């Protein structure tokens, strides 16, 4: 049983729980970010080994961590930043139109 993988999956579930119960749009976006960071942590801990170095040749020890999850996570980080920027701009537009950031009020006013 790998305890670090289990712990990062618990953080993923914390993010999903925040998404389900949040009443404010900003806290939903923050929960989405927590989930994304936890997925990055999950992938990195799958590839990690004990005493492994960064995957750059020319070091002293021959044991390196797995480079493929790290190369995948570069992509995931940039796309996460894009999603956050897009949703923040949509939130600004919603606030200018409705004057509130609560999910419930916006849904009620929309009918």
């Amino acid at each position, binding site marked *: *049983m*790998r305890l670090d*993988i*289990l712990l990062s*999956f*618990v953080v993923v*579930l914390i993010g*999903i*729980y925040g998404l*389900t*119960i949040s009443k404010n749009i900003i806290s939903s976006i923050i929960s989405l970010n927590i989930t994304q960071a936890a997925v990055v942590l999950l992938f990195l801990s*799958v*590839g990690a080994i004990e005493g492994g170095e960064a*995957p*750059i*040749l*020319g070091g002293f020890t*021959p044991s*390196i961590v*797995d*480079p*493929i999850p*790290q*190369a*995948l996570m*570069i*992509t995931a980080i*940039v*796309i996460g930043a*894009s999603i956050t*920027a*897009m949703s923040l*701009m*949509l939130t600004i*537009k*919603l606030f*200018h*139109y409705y004057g509130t950031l609560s999910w419930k009020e916006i849904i009620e006013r929309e009918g």
Partner: protein
Amino acid sequence: MIKKILVLLMLFTILVFFMITISDFNINTYTKDYLLENGYKETGSQNLITAVYLDYRLYDSIFEAGVLLVTVSGIIFMSKKDDEVL
């Protein structure tokens, strides 16, 4: 209140299934060994992460740059419309 308890129960179920899944978890190191042996010769990069995302998986990083471009144009498009929900 009942909604929160139900959500917690659902997430706990997911956690239990995940624990069962990773109980016999072992990592194979075929790709890591291959990259350690041939990565420098095939791509010319000492940094193996750069070797992966600029040679073996260039398809991935190109379209990821495309996603960033689409995001920038979407944000500028939305900011030009004044006080109007799309």
